[in-house]
């Protein structure tokens, strides 16, 4: 049964993700605005730090990478859920006969893809602008793993809070207030791991493993909280209703009723 439920959630997640991507491919709104914003931030970083020597850019590059991810992530999430709010489609999704976890996974998946497209510009950009970032191009596999793990952790939390604000009619300004403190542990792990990558630290696989473990925790907590945050928990059952429910279950199982 559990296996079937998992397959159902996976199938629904893929269907919803496909629908998200189809919608995005119609006008490329999120991809275009987010990549443009990434380029603007890169340009500003270049103007600010181009004069620094290599030894000074070494500790700066990890910060530039993850700050950009944080900025781009927050505008992507804001826009992704603004779109839902404008058309009131989040409510439609919530009343559709799909698991809420599937909605969370699809939204997180589509945001992750947009962030990864931005990172595909950001990382080579940083590598070409700052000599310290050359390692990104020399070790593409490790860099890709690091970026995917960092962005995954960010969207795992970001999707939950952006959806919560969009669903509750909350104020957008609050997203940045919430998102930055909550996502900073992920970004800190990202910083430490990126520094290890740039330093050619032999502990890099261990740091990547820790990031993966953190992602699993954040995805688990995010998926667990998505439904209660968006629609609220079912009202607490009264003692009488709970007894009735227990009786029905026992009757269904063909056992005697408790006295």
């Amino acid at each position: 049964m559990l296996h079937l439920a998992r397959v159902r959630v996976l199938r629904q997640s893929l269907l919803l993700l496909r629908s998200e991507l189809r919608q995005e491919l119609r006008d490329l709104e999120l991809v275009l605005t987010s990549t443009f914003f990434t380029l603007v931030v890169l340009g500003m970083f270049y103007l600010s730090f181009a004069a620094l020597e290599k030894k000074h850019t070494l500790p700066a590059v990890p910060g530039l990478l993850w700050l950009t991810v944080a900025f781009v992530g927050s505008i992507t999430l804001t826009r992704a859920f603004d779109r839902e709010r404008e058309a009131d489609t989040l409510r439609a999704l919530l009343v559709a006969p799909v698991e809420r976890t599937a909605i969370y996974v699809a939204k997180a998946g589509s945001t992750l893809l947009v962030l990864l497209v931005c990172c595909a510009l950001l990382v080579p950009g940083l590598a070409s602008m700052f000599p310290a970032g050359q390692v990104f191009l020399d070790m593409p596999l490790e860099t890709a793993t690091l970026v995917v793990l960092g962005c995954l952790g960010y969207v795992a939390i970001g999707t939950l809070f952006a959806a919560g604000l969009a669903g509750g009619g909350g104020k957008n300004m609050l997203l940045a207030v919430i998102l930055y403190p909550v996502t900073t542990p992920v970004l800190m792990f990202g910083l430490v791991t990126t520094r290890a990558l740039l330093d050619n630290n032999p502990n890099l696989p261990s740091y990547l493993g820790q990031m993966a473990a953190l992602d699993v925790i954040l995805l688990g907590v995010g998926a667990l909280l998505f439904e209660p945050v968006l629609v609220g928990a079912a009202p607490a059952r009264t003692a009488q209703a709970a007894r009735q429910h227990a009786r029905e279950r026992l009757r269904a199982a063909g056992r005697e009723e408790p006295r």
Partner: protein
Amino acid sequence: MKRKSELVVPLLFLAAAPLAVYSVQRVFLHTPNERTMGTAFKIFFFHVPMGWLCMLMAVISGVAAYVQLRRRSRTAAAVALASAEIGFLGGLGVMLTGPIWGHATWGTPWTGDARQVTTALLWLVIAAYLLLRHFGQHASERLAAALAIFGAVNVPLIYYAVKLWKTTHPTTGVVAKLPPEMWATFWPGLGALLLVSFGLFAIRARQLVLAGELDDAYVRLEDSRA
């Protein structure tokens, strides 16, 4: 006549008062200076209990927020907010005393050490929770609860940050290595702080529950007039 439960808070404060006086005089008059840190080490007796209080309250707030989300409990929502407020004050104490101790011991108030940064983060999460509870709209109470849960998830991260990131901060076993006379000073201070905090927490949680009931009564009154 007062109910028995109403006597708990005055009793907590009454127990805390002599303990606080005893603890402060012990810190300054009867506890020897630490060998390497000298007098600056005395701030440890204030800094560490406040750090523990902040983390404890973050955990209580996270657990209460989870109950609030699962059961739509107003009491749990009040407990979550009250504990976050006390945790915020504890965190403020840590953020003020930490740099003073750091300046005296390491020569710099802020080393960017992992546990410092993560404690500051926990404090920021608590601050964001309070902002959301005070300025968010009605449905953002649930969102704030999720934030409190993430705050609680951060607590073990803080604890293990030292081991994970091999930093310059005193290791997490510092309390275990204290000589017995320092232990004897540490526990009464921690006890006094916890008693006062739980007293304030109980007052605030009860006040929040009553405020909610008052709102309900007002709405019922308006409905009956309409």
